[in-house]
C-alpha cells in the first residue's frame, strides 16, 4: 500500500511545483482542484490501517469540497472580477521555483534529520505535506492578486490536511472539518468581496488596497496641508 501513498505524495509535490510557476489563474485553479482530488484519494489508499467510516467521510468531503466546490467558486470569482493572469508577482517565477526547490530540500532534510514523524504512513508523505504548506504560504506572500492569495491559502490547507491524514491523528476528522469550514468561508467571502472591490476600485491588487488603512492618513493629511500652502 505504501507504494500508492508514495505515488500520490510525489504527484502532490509535482502539483506544488506547477502551482508555484503558474501565472494564469485558471491554470492555477485547475491544479488546485487536481491537488484536492489527489488528497481526497489519499485516505482511501490507507485502508491498511482500517477502512473506517471516518476516512470515507474525509475522502468524500475532500473530493467534493476541494476538488469541485471551491475551485468552482474560485473560477466564478475570477470571472466576476475579470482577472486572468497574475501580473508582476513580487518574486519572479524562476526565482520562485528555485526557492521552492530549496524549501523542499530543507523540508526533507528537516524531517529526516530529526525523524519528525515515525508513525507516518510513508516516509515521503510528511515532508511533502510540509512542502505543500510552504508553497501555500509562499504564494500568499509573493503574489499580488487577492484571488491568488485565496489559492495560496487553499494550498496551505491542503498541506495541513495531508499531514493530518498521513499521521492518522485521533481527532483528524474534526480538526479537518473545522479548517475546511474556515477555508470555505474564506473563499466564499473572498469571492463576494473581490467582486465588490473590483467594482469600486477597478482592480484587485491587494498591495494597492494598503492605502485604505488608517495608518497612512496622517501622512496624507500632511501632504494635503503642504499642497494647500
Amino acid at each position: 500500500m505504501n507504494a500508492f501513498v508514495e505515488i500520490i505524495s510525489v504527484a502532490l509535490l509535482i502539483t506544488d511545483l506547477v502551482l508555484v510557476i503558474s501565472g494564469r489563474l485558471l491554470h492555477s485553479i485547475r491544479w488546485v482542484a487536481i491537488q484536492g482530488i489527489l488528497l481526497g484519494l489519499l485516505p482511501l489508499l490507507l485502508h491498511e490501517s482500517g477502512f473506517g467510516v471516518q476516512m470515507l467521510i474525509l475522502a468524500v468531503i475532500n473530493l467534493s469540497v476541494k476538488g469541485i466546490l471551491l475551485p468552482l467558486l474560485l473560477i466564478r470569482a475570477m470571472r466576476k472580477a475579470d482577472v486572468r493572469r497574475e501580473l508582476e508577482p513580487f518574486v519572479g517565477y524562476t526565482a520562485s521555483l528555485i526557492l521552492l526547490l530549496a524549501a523542499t530540500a530543507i523540508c526533507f532534510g528537516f524531517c529526516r534529520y530529526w525523524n519528525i514523524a515515525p508513525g507516518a504512513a510513508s516516509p515521503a508523505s510528511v515532508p511533502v505535506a510540509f512542502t505543500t504548506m510552504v508553497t501555500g504560504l509562499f504564494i500568499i506572500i509573493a503574489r499580488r492578486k487577492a484571488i491568488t492569495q485565496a489559492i495560496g491559502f487553499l494550498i496551505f490547507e491542503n498541506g495541513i490536511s495531508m499531514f493530518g491524514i498521513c499521521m492518522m491523528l485521533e481527532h483528524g476528522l474534526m480538526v479537518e472539518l473545522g479548517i475546511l469550514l474556515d477555508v470555505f468561508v474564506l473563499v466564499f467571502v473572498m469571492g463576494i468581496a473581490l467582486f465588490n472591490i473590483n467594482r469600486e476600485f477597478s482592480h484587485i491588487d491587494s498591495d494597492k488596497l494598503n492605502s485604505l488603512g488608517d495608518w497612512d492618513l496622517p501622512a496624507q493629511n500632511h501632504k494635503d496641508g503642504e499642497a494647500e500652502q
Partner: protein
Amino acid sequence: MVLFDASLFLLAAGGILALISNRNDRIATICGLTGGLGGTLCGAIGAIRAFLTPEIRTVAEGAVIQQPEMMAAFFLMPVTILGAFAAIHSVGYLKHHGHGRLGIYWFFYNLMIASMILVPLSATPVTFLFCWEIMGLTSFALVAYEYHSRETMKAAWIYLLACHAGIAFLIPMFMIHLGIWQTANATLWLFLTGAIGFGLKAGLPGLHVWLPEAHPAAPAPVSSVMSGAMINLGIFGILTYAVKSNDHFLLYGYFLLICGIIGAFGGAVSAYAQQNLKRLLACSSVENIGIICMGLGFGFLGFGYQNNFMAVCGFTGAFLHILNHAVLKGTLFLAAGEVYRSTGTLNMDLLGGLMKRIPGTGRIFTLAGLSLSGLPPFNAFPGEFAIYLAGFAGLAAKSTLLFVISLAGILGLAVTGGVVCGVFAKAIGGTFLGEPRSSHASEAEKTPVSIFGAMTGLISLAVIMLVATPVMTLLLRKMPEMFLKTAGNEIAQHSNHLAGLMLKLTAASGIVLIFFIMIWLLRYMLLTGKSVEKGPTWDCGYAEPTARMEYTATSFARPLCKDINLLSCFKKHEQKPDGLFPESASVTVTAEDPATAAWWKPLFEFFGKIAEKVHRLQSGSLHWYILMMVIAVLAMLIWGFVFQTDKTAGQKDHGKVSVKKEVVK
C-alpha cells in the same frame, strides 16, 4: 455586597443608556447622572458600612470580587463620595461645551467610577490588574475629552504612557507577590516594583510626570475625582500589595518618609511657580501625597523601632489626611472648573476680581484653600498635627538615625506648610481678589445651581469631618493593626490617647470658629442702620486705579522662584525693547518641572527613537505582515522541535502533535 452589586449595576446601566442616547443631550445627561448618582450613593453606603463593621466579611471560593476589608472600604469612601459630587458638578460644567458628546462623557465617567470601585474590591491579582487597566483607559478617554486641543492630546498621551509604565512594574510585582517569580530579597523587589508601579499612579516625587499635565487638561469633575480619589488608589495599592505585614518596617518607613519629604517640599515649590490654576492644584496634589507618605513613613518607622505611639500617630495622620485631601482637593478642582467655565481661561495672570463676580465659588475656594494649607482651625490641620506628633515622638527616641530623619521630616513638613500657605495666597489672590486683568475675568458668567450645589455639599462635608475628627481617629485605630497584628491592645491605648488630643484640638478649633463668627456678627450689628458704600478696589489715594497696577500671580511668586529659585523651575523668556522706537517687547514666564526635564524627557525621546525604528516594520504591506508571521511561526516550530523534544523525550509524539496544532491555528 448587595450594595456594591447594585452600585456597579447602576453605574454600568447609566453609562450604557447614556451612550445609547448620545444624540439627545438632555436624555443622556439624565441617564448618566441617575446611574452615576445612584451607583455612587449605593457604593458610599456600602463602603461606610464595610468600614464600620469590617468583621462581617465573607469570601466566596473562586470569586473575582469580594466584600471589602477595612482598608479597601476606607479607600472606597473618597471614590464614591467624590464621584457623586463630581457627577452633579458635571451637569452644569458640560452644559455649554460638549454638545452631542455628553453620552460619551457619561459612559466613560460611569465606567471610570465603576472601575475605581472595582479596584479595591478585587479578590485576585488578575482582576485587580484588569480593573486597574480599565481605570487607566477610561480616565485617559476622559482626559482626552476636549480632543480638539493639541495641549490636551499631549497631556492625554503622557497620561496613557505613565499608566502603562505603571503596569509594566505592576506585573512583575504581582509575579513576585504570587511566587511565580522567585528571587532573593523578594520583599525588597516586591516593595520597589510596587512603589514605582503604584507610585506612577499616586504621583510619588519623580514619578508624578502626568499629574501637572493631565489634571489641567481633563474636565474639572474628572480632575477632581482623579486628584481626590484615583491617586489615593495608588497609596492603596502600595499598602495592600507591595507591603507585607509584620516585617521590614524600616525599609518601608525610610523609603516612604524620604519620598514624602521630597514630594511634599518639591510639590509645594513647583505649585508656587505655576500660572495655570488647575496645574497649581495638581502640583499641590503631589505635595499632599508627599505629606501622606510622610505619615505612613513615620508609621512604619514607629513599628520598626517598637515605638507604637509614633506608629499610631503617623498612620492616623496619614489616613486623616487622605480623607481631608480628597474632600478639599475635590472641592478646589470643582471650584477651579467653575472659574474655567465662567471665564474661559485658567491663566491666573488673566484672572482677578472674581470674588465680586462669582462670590459663592470664591468663598468656597478660599475656605477649601485655607483648609488645605493646614492652618489651625480648619480641616487638614488635625492630620498634619498627628504627623507632627509622630515626628516629635521620633525625636524623643534614642536612635540617632531616627532622630535625624524625624528632624528632617518635621522641618520638611514645616517648610512645606509655609510654602503651601503662599501657594494658596497666590491662587486665591491671583484669581479672586483685586480687579479683573482681562475681559475673560470681567465678563465672568454666573454659577449654575448644580455646580454651586456640588461645591457647597463637599465643603459642608469637610466641616462635618472637622467636627468628627476625634471619632474618626478612634475608628482608624484598626488600620495600623493590619501591618502589625501583635500589638492590638497597645495600639488601641495610644489611639484613645490621640483621640483625646484630637478632641481638645477640635474643641479649640470650634472656639476659634465661634470667635470668628461672633466678630462677623458684631460687624453686622454695628453696620446695621448705617449706609454702606461700595467703591472700586484701591479707590483710596489713587486717582484712577487700573488693574495693571496690581500684582499678578506670577509677580507674586517671583521672590521665591526667581531670587531663591529652589528647584530652578522658573524659566523666563523675554524679548527686550530694541532700538529707539521699539515695536514689541514681551516677557513670559513658564514653570518647568525639574523631574520632567531631568529624566522623563530624555526617556520619552529615547523610546520615541526606538519606536520610530520599530515602526518601519509596520510598512502597511499585507504581504510583509504575512511574511513576518510565517517567520515567527517557523521560528517557533523549529524552536519547539529542536529544543523542546529533548527535554520531553518520553512523550515524543505528544509534544509533536501539540506543536503541530499551534501551526494550524
